[in-house]
């Protein structure tokens, strides 16, 4: 059942999307993954600015073992590369984030953003088309009006299903710095976009105006020592949001108190452990992702080596800390040199907030059961890609004798990083982005 103990959940390979080519085209690198609110749709964005949406097929009584698979539903080019002539800079088309809106009619809506511009896309199906126009023939060519002797009423006839994606809104020119987060408000009327120094509030209907609700840019840029790294609205309270910083702090703000939320309502920070202090302490404390639990009672943060769970009612320390890959602590200098220390890993909750998941290197990803305190390391690889093959837990050997099936720290492939993962809102189905491949795993169906 859902929320079951870790030992009862066996994860199986379900599908993998993407090419097996050894040379990876940079544009194909997946940069964001997100299920919609029902889990029926799964969207990915890539460095080439494309969005691919997968739809879960209806479960068939004929094949009960095969839980609905995800098939391509729509593909479209969301963002194009741009050139800012004023600054002589390219604006990357890479999709940083996708966020779904809750479904309110037959069409699906999602927000996708690159560094500078947020777009609202409408994805809708067309399975009928009008036929029998008077003024044009079936090919669309205009008829000569003098040749028309009778009038008819056009009728709708079925056609092959076509899925169209159309940009309905473009929210541009509001961010000087790079957008790192977007979050849809629970009022479904507004959303926020956050860059390194500012957070803006938008109304979905209005594209030429946004409200600045957080601004941490110092008057003198020489004094800049901290940036915003992630932001999210509370899942139920439309006036509340949090944002995290590069100094490892989280601020919770209430939009009712002031128009500019520079003064936080709550400030979450864990006191530093003096025994672990090094020149890299600040860098590894920088929070790369922040996520509210579905319940709204907790927030989860990801920094370089750990995942932490915070209770909204306790600001002075997290209630839980999980080590993702502590064996990297002695390698920080090398990781600083090759820039891996700046990798931004995301983290996700399962639907019941009992298990949390995040990625690591070597295509490993980790899950932590908050109730049993058990954790597991799994790998997204083509070798484990047989249908319904059970994933074997992986283990990193820190020193001393390496057991069979263990991998030593020095053998880890740091170019294979799992930065983006997603968990189905109600089932044990996860999507894991490994460079240009998207893996879908499900728990074993007995």
């Amino acid at each position: 059942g859902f929320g079951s103990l870790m030992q009862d959940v066996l994860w199986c390979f379900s599908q993998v999307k993407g090419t097996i080519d050894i040379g990876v085209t940079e544009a194909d690198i997946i940069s964001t993954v997100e299920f919609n609110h029902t889990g029926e749709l799964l969207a990915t964005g890539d460095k080439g600015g494309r969005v691919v949406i997968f739809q879960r097929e209806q479960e068939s009584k004929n094949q009960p073992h095969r839980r609905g698979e995800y098939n391509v539903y729509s593909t479209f080019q969301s963002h194009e590369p741009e050139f800012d002539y004023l600054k002589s800079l390219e604006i990357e088309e890479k999709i940083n984030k996708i966020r779904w809106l809750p479904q309110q009619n037959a069409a699906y809506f999602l927000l996708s953003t690159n560094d500078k511009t947020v777009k609202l896309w409408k994805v809708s199906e067309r399975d009928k088309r009008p036929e029998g126009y008077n003024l044009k023939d079936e090919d669309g060519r205009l008829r000569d009006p003098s040749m028309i002797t009778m009038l008819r009423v056009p009728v709708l006839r079925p056609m092959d299903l076509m899925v169209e994606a159309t940009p309905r809104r473009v929210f541009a020119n509001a961010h000087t710095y790079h957008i790192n987060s977007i979050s849809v408000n629970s009022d479904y009327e507004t959303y926020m976009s956050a860059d390194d120094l500012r957070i803006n509030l938008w109304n979905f209907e209005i594209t030429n105006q946004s409200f600045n609700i957080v601004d941490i840019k110092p008057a003198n840029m020489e004094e800049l020592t901290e940036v915003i790294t992630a932001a999210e609205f509370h899942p139920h309270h439309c006036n509340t949001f949090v944002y995290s910083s590069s100094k490892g702090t989280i601020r919770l703000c209430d939009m009712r108190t002031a128009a500019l939320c520079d003064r936080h309502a709550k400030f979450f920070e864990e006191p530093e452990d003096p025994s672990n202090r090094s020149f890299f302490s600040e860098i590894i404390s920088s929070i790369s992702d922040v996520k509210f639990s579905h319940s709204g009672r907790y927030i989860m943060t990801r920094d370089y080596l750990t995942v932490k769970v915070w209770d909204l009612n306790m600001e002075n320390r997290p209630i839980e800390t999980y080590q993702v890959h502590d064996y990297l602590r002695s390698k920080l200098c090398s990781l600083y040199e090759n820039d891996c220390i700046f990798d931004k890993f995301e983290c996700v909750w399962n639907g019941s907030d009992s298990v949390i998941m995040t990625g690591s290197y070597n295509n490993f990803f980790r899950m932590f059961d908050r109730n049993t305190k058990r954790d597991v390391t799994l790998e997204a690889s083509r070798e484990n890609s047989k249908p319904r093959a059970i994933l074997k837990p992986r283990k990193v050997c820190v020193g001393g004798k390496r057991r069979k099936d263990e991998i030593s720290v020095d053998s880890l492939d740091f170019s294979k990083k799992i930065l983006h993962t997603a968990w189905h809102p109600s089932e044990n189905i996860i999507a894991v982005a490994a460079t240009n491949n998207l893996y879908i795993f499900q728990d074993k169906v007995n």
Partner: protein
Amino acid sequence: MFVRGLKRKCLDGEEDIEGTLAGIKAIPSYNLQRQSLLDMSLVKLQLCHMLVEPNLCRSVLIANTVRQIQEEMTQDGTWQMINTQNTGQASLDRLVSTDILCRSSSEQAEGKHVPGYGTFSKDFEGDQGQGSSETMSTASSVQAPRNLQSNVWEMENPQESKGNFQKSLDQIFETLENKSPNSVEDLFSEVDNSYYDLDTVLTGMMSNTKMGHCDGLETFSSPTNTASNSNCKSDLNELDHIVEILVES
């Protein structure tokens, strides 16, 4: 943990006994590691700009690391630096600081000087064997780490100003901001002033470097190809020209 390209063979004059022992054991001393980290960080700050805007979070974290090292070195008293720039050079400093961002790594490695810039440090002059009394103040911020290393071995006067490093770091940020009226603005007074809006410049100026590599100190220490730096060279020539005009006037 040793950074490539920074192996030190000469341990003479090393005050740190641990360092001497370290030399024997081939384990770098804390000071040496710290120095390596400082070098690496400065290079990362200055060399990592492509056609796309740099990652601000990364830059801020690296800059904070550099400040941390500097503070600790200041407290230790191991901080040795070239002389403070006098304020008269302020306007040239700003030109200089833009230039350093455009400098190719090979130029930095060779200690190339562009005439007409800033003041010169005695140490620098001594090391480079140059007769010229001019160099860049922020050029020395990149050169200085290498000087610092040799200085550590030679145990130079630790009383020298530590303020200059902070100034160099500030200049890196100033090139991003270009906030105050100065000679650079005067030179470009015909350009639409909105170009120098804080935000625009912050994200814009750092792009002019167009350096190809970000391999840490490997790039720093080895002469690399300058094919990717043609844009920077033309900027460099323009700045030469501009400074010549300033100096003559």
